[in-house]
């Protein structure tokens, strides 16, 4: 349930010389750590430890694990979902960029498809921002981090995009996207509070929208059990068509829906300076809504031309 919502709960810290000033009341006093002004310089290169023996990097990724995951996922990508790309050349081959897409399926099948596709075609790593919920899960959370998942925190996004100039994938709908039922398929939810636009502006990178068709049908939710999700602390507890048809296997088994991904024209914010403390809220919301509308429009267009869920 990758999620962009968290990206504006606290802002990237760079140009925020005085955070303590915003402490409120006795409660806030303890929440805010002390800050004494120090002149900020940021030309020190980020240094990694050259003497390490393991291969788990600073983001918790392991290249060995990723190679293995790619190998295991490739048949699913090629034979099962038969992923087809359109406009891959619009994804920058160098420099940071924030990739945003629509999000679907009870266990989202779009994130691995996008990451695998870009990584194999462009040979660039993609960092998938997702809800902290993953980090809480034993085993799953560790595997998720080893294969490229990063907690969606504005500081993490800023560091990846601005300082390390990487490709970052985020689903602005958050868990509301995959958590919708089948009768609402391909209707985009709210794009959070537009945190992804703000991060892209602050990091000075373009946003590359992607419209994904096929994920919705790979594991459609028929209905949800709110009481169960509350009891288990899950974002949602779905009953999927897969479970009804495939039994226990259906909790993880996808339907072989045909995946089509269309990369849209990147959006750049060249007129705003990066590294600002704040950006115009109205501008952020306008940009966010414009991107949402474009993805929605492309989805309708792709669905108009789709003859079969299974064969495209």
């Amino acid at each position, binding site marked *: 349930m990758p999620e962009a919502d968290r990206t504006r709960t*606290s802002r990237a810290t760079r140009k*925020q010389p005085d955070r303590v000033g915003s402490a409120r009341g006795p409660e806030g006093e303890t929440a805010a750590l002390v800050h004494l*002004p120090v002149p900020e310089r940021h030309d020190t290169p980020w240094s*990694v*430890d050259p003497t390490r023996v393991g291969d*788990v990097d600073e983001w918790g990724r392991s290249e060995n694990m990723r190679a293995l995951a790619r190998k295991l996922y490739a048949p699913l990508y090629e034979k099962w979902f038969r992923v087809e790309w359109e406009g891959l050349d619009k994804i920058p081959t160098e420099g940071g960029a924030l990739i945003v897409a629509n999000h679907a399926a009870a266990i989202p099948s779009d994130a691995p498809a996008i990451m695998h596709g870009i990584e194999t075609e462009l040979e660039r790593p993609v960092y998938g921002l997702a809800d902290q919920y993953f980090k809480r899960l034993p*085993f799953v959370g560790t595997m998720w981090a080893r294969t490229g998942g990063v907690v969606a925190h504005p500081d993490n996004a800023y560091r990846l995009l601005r300082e390390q100039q990487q490709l970052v994938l985020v689903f602005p709908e958050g868990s509301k996207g995959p958590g919708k039922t089948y009768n609402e398929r391909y209707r985009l939810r709210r794009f959070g509070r537009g945190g992804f636009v703000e991060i892209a502006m602050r990091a000075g990178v373009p946003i590359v929208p992607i419209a994904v068709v096929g994920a919705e049908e790979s594991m459609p939710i028929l209905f949800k059990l709110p009481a169960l999700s509350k009891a288990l602390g899950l974002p949602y507890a779905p009953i999927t068509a897969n479970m009804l048809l495939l039994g226990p296997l259906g909790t993880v088994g996808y339907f072989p829906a045909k995946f089509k991904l269309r990369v849209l024209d990147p959006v750049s914010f060249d007129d705003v300076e990066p590294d600002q403390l704040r950006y115009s809220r109205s501008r952020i919301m306008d940009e966010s809504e414009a991107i949402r509308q474009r993805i929605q429009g492309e989805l309708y267009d792709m669905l108009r031309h789709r003859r079969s869920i299974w064969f495209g």
Partner: protein
Amino acid sequence: MGRRVLVTGLGTFWGGRVAQALEADEDVDVIIGLDTDEPQVRLERTEYVRSDENYSILSRIVQATGVDTIVHTFLVIDSTQASSRTVHETNVIGTMNLFAAASAPGSTVRSVVVKSASLVYGCAPQDPYWFRETSRRSATPRTSIERSLLEVEGYVRDFATDNPHVRLALLRFSNVLGRDIVTPLSTALALPVVPKLAGFDPRFQFVHETDVIAAILFVMSQRLAGVYNVAGDGQVPWSEVASIVGKRTAPLLPYGTGVAAGALRRLGVVDLAPEVLSLLRYGRGVDNRRLKEAGFRYGYTSSGAVRAFAEEMRLRSTVGTREREYRYQEDVERWFRHSSAVLRNESNR
């Protein structure tokens, strides 16, 4: 006139080492050390004063001696060492008294260095992977040790606001490893099998004990003010830490860990405090660039600190724990410092 320095926590690992290093500095005229316990290292000219844990005596000492610098190394950051009552007295009340003394009318104090810990950032799944000095906590503190350190932060902030003429540096250290220092993590790594939480392999960031002393002295000598993270470069997954140390890991169930930890504590195996357990679950990283930008050079990276620790542990497993070379004896120390028989010239300083 040279500098006059007061070191709190002289009996702790850090206080003693800092005082030793200051003794070698000819610019420092007077070193006064405060602690509830006697110093554990040999000191030539540092004057040891026994105090209670909350430093009620401190304002008298500051007035009487006219110190210009206070190095506050006495904060308890390991909750297994002391009851929460002692932690409160030492950290909160002690720091309050210290700043009260330093800000008294006519106070001669012009520089304060506080040694705190990256524990103040907390440890939660929603944390950024690298805390900057300006980052906020993401979760409310649950343990009394964290709450006490956050109160210290509050006193530091108030003091800095009220006393702009005083140079105030706050150092936040990540987990320390080294030859001599004993921490909950070093104890865990010294066990025959290293405890971990099943299914979790968080990234840890370490700093070597010599880098800690070096950082405190660096901040003093460079006259730095502000908040600085002190941590080695890079982060190491806990499984890799265990493999560097050459141990197998023993997984604890990730649910109901508090109960398992309680059993281990009662059996006397290892005392895994709640803040250590959450560290074993989510890990913590801090951005160390600010101190590097000020010119500090680390001797060890995170994994380097673990390796150095592993080497010391191997040596210890062969030759055993070394005898404490020094024991404080009050009359001997007083005689050395005050007897007219002892030659006092520049050379034997």
